[in-house]
């Protein structure tokens, strides 16, 4: 297997509040003999509220990133662009598809790019790191890299709303399984639960369920996920989106008070779990940034990061 370096688009969240995602992904890919090279001079993906206000402007933002990625690989073949935040992944993928053929949108965006000296040829292939891990690097290589199997750890794999919607490029739209397979490959046990792709409320809070636009709706949505994962015996929730992770991890005390049921379940990035199983130093995986982190015995050998039950963000 030859080492391959992928162009990586982190986006604002996976460099900010969810920087543990980028850190752990970089460490895990490197450990598996692949590299992530951050796209130079990347800009906002254009997600957030922009698409519903002016879709072309959102496309233009994404298209600049895709054009920059293309420039990194001058030959004529397709260029994989990895986006970890599922909001970015969706926004970039939607742009890739919108510009996939001639038409008024392609003309308009092409004109905008030309004004800043860029040209998009349509070679970018927006992909999610989970897709690469499962379908390109492969579960065999993931399993082979495990030095500390997460035996006995029950994980609720939470895919969030955007990984398979609206575009299901590599997994089933209603019953995705790639995270479950990854978790199983490192010795942990994925739980069966029906909320894999239910919205966490991240899209209607923009600043947290406490100060966001629709705090009650957000809390209801997040609470359902936390309650159900706990009820079904999960030790932790594995996520693949900085917004989901933050939303699920950060406000458990407040939700406990609001709904009258104690909540205390770690919500981590799946790449952090993989890294721990690979024996990578926890600091490199950004484990210390988590508010709640614990591995159950006996797999918890050497788990030394902050003990669980931390306070809420901005609470």
């Amino acid at each position, binding site marked *: 297997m030859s080492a391959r370096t992928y162009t990586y688009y982190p986006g604002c969240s996976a460099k900010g509040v969810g920087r543990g995602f980028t850190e752990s992904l970089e460490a895990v890919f490197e450990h598996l003999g692949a590299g992530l090279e951050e796209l130079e001079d990347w800009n906002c993906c254009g997600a957030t509220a922009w698409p519903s206000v002016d879709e072309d402007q959102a496309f233009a933002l994404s298209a600049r990133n895709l054009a920059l990625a293309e420039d990194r690989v001058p030959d004529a073949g397709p260029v994989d662009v990895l986006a970890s935040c599922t909001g970015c992944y969706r926004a970039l993928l939607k742009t890739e598809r919108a510009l996939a053929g001639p038409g008024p949108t392609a003309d308009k965006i092409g004109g905008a790019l030309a004004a800043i000296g860029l040209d998009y040829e349509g070679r970018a292939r927006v992909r999610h790191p989970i897709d690469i891990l499962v379908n390109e690097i492969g579960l065999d290589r993931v399993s082979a890299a495990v030095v500390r199997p997460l035996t006995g750890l029950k994980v609720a794999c939470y895919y969030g709303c955007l990984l398979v919607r609206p575009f299901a490029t590599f997994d*089933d739209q*209603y*019953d995705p399984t790639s995270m479950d397979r990854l978790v199983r490959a490192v010795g942990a046990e994925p739980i069966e*639960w*029906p*909320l894999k792709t239910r919205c966490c409320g991240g899209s209607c809070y923009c600043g947290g369920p406490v100060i966001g636009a629709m705090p009650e709706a957000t809390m209801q949505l997040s609470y*359902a996920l936390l309650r*159900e994962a706990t009820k079904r015996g999960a030790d932790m929730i594995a996520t693949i989106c900085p917004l989901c992770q933050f939303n699920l991890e950060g406000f458990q005390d407040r939700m406990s008070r609001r709904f009258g049921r104690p909540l205390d379940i770690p919500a981590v990035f799946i790449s952090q779990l993989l890294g721990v199983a690979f024996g990578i130093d926890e600091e490199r995986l950004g484990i210390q940034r988590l508010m709640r982190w614990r591995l159950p015995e006996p797999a918890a050998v050497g788990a030394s990061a902050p003990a669980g039950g931390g306070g809420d963000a901005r609470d």
Partner: protein
Amino acid sequence: MLETEGALSPTNGGPKIGVYVCHCGLNIAGKVDVEAVVEFASTLPAVAVARDYKFMCSDPGQELIEKDLREGLVNRVVVASCSPLMHEATFRRATAEGGQSPFYFQMASIREHVSWVTADGHEATDKAKALVAAAVRRVALHEYLEPRKAEVRPDVLVVGGGIAGISAALTLAEAGKHVYLVERETTIGGHMAKFDKTFPTLDCSACILTPKMSAVRSHPNITLWTYSDVVAVEGFTGDFTVRVRHRPRYVIEELCTGCLECIEKCIHKQGKFDDEWNEGLSKRKPIYIPFPQATPPVVVVDPDTCIWFKTGKCPQTCIEACERDAFDFAQTETFDEIKVGAIILGTGFKTFDASKMPEYGYGRYPNVYTSLEVERLLNAAGPTGGEVVLRDGTRPKVVGIIHCVGSRDAKHNVWCSKVCCMYSLKLAHIVKERIGAEVYNFYIDMRTPGKGYEEFYDKILKEGVHMVRGRVAGVTDEAASPEEEGHLVIRAEDTLIGSVRRIPVDMVILAVGLEPRPDAQDVRRLFNISCGGEGWFTERHPKLAPVSTFTDGVFLAGACQGPKDIPDTVAQAGAAAAEVLAMVDRGYVMLEANTAHIDEATCSGCKTCVGLCPFGAISFDEERKKASVNEVVCKGCGICVGACPSGAAQQHLFTDEEIFAEIEGVLAYV
């Protein structure tokens, strides 16, 4: 077998061509300047008469042609109108009525090929003129040909023993025709035999179907072959040769009386294998009969699960139990070859595979059922003897029926399956009546067109069945409140009250839609008919020839042509039987005159054509080193004509001169 009518005489003298341009109401005249085309046509060489008329296909239109022919004004005819598929037969007949060979006729398609597909009126008129010029040049060269007739064999093949095939077979048999009814399964009856009751009258499905099944079995004019399939079809309308394969039952059908003693005595004390007839809701033994009224009432041994076949070690208590010595474990596939004049396909449908929609939890939650499974549950001959109980033996208190599963869905099947609204109402009624459960129906739109259907809907509403209008998002076992604990929850938008609802239920019934059988493409190729991309067989005309196909002599009945309920299926089966009777009782079919022939003087004896002919119509005389075409067998495909290196193979109505004249006609105008 081949006759010529001989009443017509070759034309004397040179061609005098009549050109008739049709307005087709505004279909043609709305785009093409018909008068200009007529004026142009009258200037063409050999054109004696040029006229236009509002509808050439009408009786007065045809009379124009016949009159000109009879009065000797013209002796060849060009009609510029629709496509040959539409009205070539009409105008050929008119030409013959006028006293000429029907093949002294040529059609110019100025509707499908011009007015319907050309935006600009001037361009359309120009193109119409070019096509008329081509037809005029061509028809001048047509040779004198006489119509051919072929005898129609009186026997009929019906494929598929569901209610479609049963109805068609009985109608034909009652009319005195011999019918071969071929069914793939071990019994006839099809889907209808699985249902408990039928909408909207709620009559017991078995009570109305089984008399017809036994009538099929006992009818002297019906040869019933179950556990059999058609493996090859050769020939053409009126004279098909069909090869039928019979799969081994390991039980001699003529000897078995259906006493079922052997099943009782099978070494397996209990059923162990999924019973396909009960949709896997019960277990059967390796030797079984699908249901008590199976027709024929003959048991079958499943070699995949029978211990004797798997290990060779079994005391074969079944054989001991049989008083009639009906077992024959050495049976192998056998074949029959039959000759029939016409074929009716009634191969039916399959239901949508609900596991393709994981959001509804089929296969994950045991209390999610398909409608067909529930039909079996409700059926007195089914796995629970008609008791409405869940897999754990308890009675559901609340039942949710989800409509349009797999139907009206861009991700799966875009079509409406037509029967699901009505059968969902029927299931709602029966479940409520039997166990008094609360029943919720989740629908997109209620579609109840049909005699007594809307009244049935009204009755169900009055019985207190809850109707929620909105597409169901999912079925989950996630309990958001104490009331939901231990139940399945149906999440749906209720578009009438404008909110999202969560309704806890004990049982979910998925109203799975209808789709073509997975081997529809194979069947289509076998019988040389066509089907749409989705796999429903294509009728010759959606309105005016709904049971014919583009292959003469092959007809359609029932849901193999599209989703259909029982009344529509039976009506269509009757129509197909009537079409067959019209053909068989007439005793002959008219054949195309466009057969190939070989000019011996130019034939070099290379044999290229012999191997290429798909119909085996070309033979080779080794002594004289010449090929010759049997014009009875020739279908006029033209392959030999195109392949012949010396130009010896020629085809009536498609000679080189005729084709070149046609091309020159277009080019001369351009």
